[in-house]
């Protein structure tokens, strides 16, 4: 946080360089912050724009319902998967969604530990984003089992069949990593909401709203003893979520790296997957933050500084991803293995080589525009870049999953892969699920953490004599 002299008026502030823009525009007090965030939910009428957006994405969500119903009826044969490409869209989408979730945890946990005050206004909706992205991701392996009604077999429980899951399998590690991640993300999100829900309870005029928010706030009254335990637990949870978030995509990459398939079997996978996850996650944060700050008029709380910082994080993780691609190519060459070298040649120039080049253009070349401050300061361009990066990251997973699988060691077992309309319907449907949930979230919950915003104010700081006088 930097302290901008208060004498500057906000018109001057708008023109400041993003590095100099404060994380919270001056002129706010505890009262105005509270009122502003609360009124977005409790006072603001349901607008046509919100209704239209929600209706659209809810419609898309219903595509998922139909496609899933048909999938359960007919089985995974309606997808384009085959032998050798047994993983197809389901796993591509799974890895993509789970990666998107990672930026939420990075913002809420890692940036908290690093004392980055600017995270305070974006952590709440980024955590919600994590939660909904993990929900979308979790659907795919369950769908992919083919018999989703037996998905509980993945968990170890005493059963009359006398069998147990194979704990040595990376696929089972994934079950534990993703379910732990989902649980901890939900806890983190809900715990952060408790004091703000109490604010909602105390501000709501509508009796039903008061009762519902009151039940959710669990009788929170802001006792400083409770705050102390709260802060302690919150910090511990951040400390636990930090290694967790790094482990989740590491474990996801183990699904690939532990196998012996050329193109999967490399040690660069864990760090490169984690960086890619955060890369796409920040792209999604920007895709959500840019419209939210515009349509809800919270540009004074999510300033250009936030966009700038998120764009810089996107650029730096993007560069790690570029390093990953380079290392991948180098491994293929340096391994001296015929199959590894063939895999790379096939990836770049084979029948699905176009996917690789789309990936390079979208994921490597396009984001280089983020070196320019003018782009990072332009919400429209930033939005466009983020959408391209999101698509590029999806292509990356497509290249890794499908292109590696379609030609392995034996030419006689080679094949190809064409996605069907059901593959596309289910993928689009989860986008509908994600955005429907986000639309409901911004309507029903405080999308900016009110109590953490209060701590950013100068009036929340203790004067030195009071703090020191013991």
């Amino acid at each position, binding site marked *: 946080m930097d302290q901008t002299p208060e004498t500057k008026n906000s018109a001057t502030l708008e023109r400041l360089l993003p590095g100099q823009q404060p994380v919270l525009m001056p002129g706010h007090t505890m009262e105005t912050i*509270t009122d502003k965030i609360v009124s977005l939910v409790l006072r603001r009428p349901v607008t046509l724009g919100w209704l239209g957006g929600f209706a659209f994405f809810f419609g898309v969500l219903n595509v998922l319902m139909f496609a899933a119903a048909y999938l359960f009826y007919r089985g995974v044969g309606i997808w384009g998967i085959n032998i050798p490409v047994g993983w197809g869209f389901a796993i591509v989408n799974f890895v993509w969604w789970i990666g998107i979730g990672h930026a939420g945890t990075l913002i809420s946990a890692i940036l908290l530990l690093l004392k980055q005050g600017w995270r305070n206004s974006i952590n709440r909706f980024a955590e919600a984003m994590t939660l909904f992205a993990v929900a979308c991701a979790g659907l795919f392996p369950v769908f992919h089992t083919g018999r989703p009604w037996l998905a509980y077999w993945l968990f170890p429980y005493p059963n009359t069949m006398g069998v147990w899951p194979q704990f*040595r399998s990376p696929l089972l590690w994934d079950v534990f990593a993703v379910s732990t991640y989902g649980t901890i993300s939900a806890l983190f999100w809900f715990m952060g909401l408790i004091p703000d829900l109490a604010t909602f309870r105390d501000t709501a005029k509508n009796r039903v709203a008061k009762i519902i928010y009151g039940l959710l706030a669990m009788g929170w009254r*802001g006792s400083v003893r409770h705050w102390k*335990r709260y802060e302690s*637990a919150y910090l511990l949870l951040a400390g636990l979520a930090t290694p967790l978030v790094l482990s989740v995509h590491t474990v996801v990459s183990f699904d690939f790296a532990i196998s012996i398939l050329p193109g999967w079997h490399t040690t660069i996978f864990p760090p490169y997957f984690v960086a890619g996850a955060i890369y796409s996650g920040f792209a999604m944060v920007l895709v959500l933050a840019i419209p939210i700050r515009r349509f809800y008029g919270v540009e004074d709380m999510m300033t250009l500084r936030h966009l700038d910082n998120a764009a810089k994080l996107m650029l730096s993780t993007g560069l790690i991803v570029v390093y990953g691609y380079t290392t991948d190519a180098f491994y293929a060459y340096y391994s001296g293995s015929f199959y590894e070298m063939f895999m790379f040649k096939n990836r770049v120039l084979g029948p699905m080589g176009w996917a690789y080049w789309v990936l390079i253009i979208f994921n490597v070349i396009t984001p280089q525009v983020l070196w320019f401050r003018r782009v990072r300061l332009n919400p429209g361009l930033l939005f466009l870049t983020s959408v391209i990066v999101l698509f590029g990251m999806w292509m990356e997973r497509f290249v890794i999953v499908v292109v590696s699988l379609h030609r392995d060691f034996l030419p006689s077992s080679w094949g190809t892969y064409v996605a069907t309309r059901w593959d596309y319907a289910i993928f689009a449907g989860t986008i509908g699920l994600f955005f429907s949930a986000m639309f409901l979230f911004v309507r029903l919950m405080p999308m900016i953490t009110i109590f953490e915003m209060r701590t950013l104010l100068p009036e929340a700081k203790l004067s030195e004599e009071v703090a020191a006088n013991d």
Partner: protein
Amino acid sequence: MTESALQPAVHGVVAEFTTPDGLVSACKKAYAAGYRRMDAYSPFPLEEAAEAIGFEKTAVPLLTLLGGILGGLSGYLLQYWVHVRAFPLNVGGRPYHSWPAFIVITFELTILFAGITAVVGMLALSGLPQPYHSIFNHPRFSAATRDRFFLCIEAADPKFDLEQTTLFLQTTDAVEVAEVAD
């Protein structure tokens, strides 16, 4: 306690402040004056106030550590029991107790148990969820989740005396001092 059975029971005397400075100095003053059964309320975390009323340490970190240890042990022992005792599978002659493959799930369950313990422990130690608390009888208390700070010296304190305590709280920077019913 001086109140008679005919008077309504008093939860305590509540002073309202507009700044964190006012609250923390009043907390220090009250603690120095010998009051112990009191609580302060703030719209954001204010560790100094908790320390000023003598709440120095919380048990949350210890509970979290124990939860993590329990999680790690159960994760590892579950896998050991399944693969060595209950359901041994010979895959290419590899050892049943193949510990490196057990590490990931052990780690995940350590985090899971520690995280759940941190949140549930924090709520349980604070007595939440708690549907009713006397402090909510204060007419202006809804500002505690907004922009105001409150200090409540409770009637349960041995030094509590309705008049004396009210007078004492009036000597602080409080903008308003009022008693609140139990």
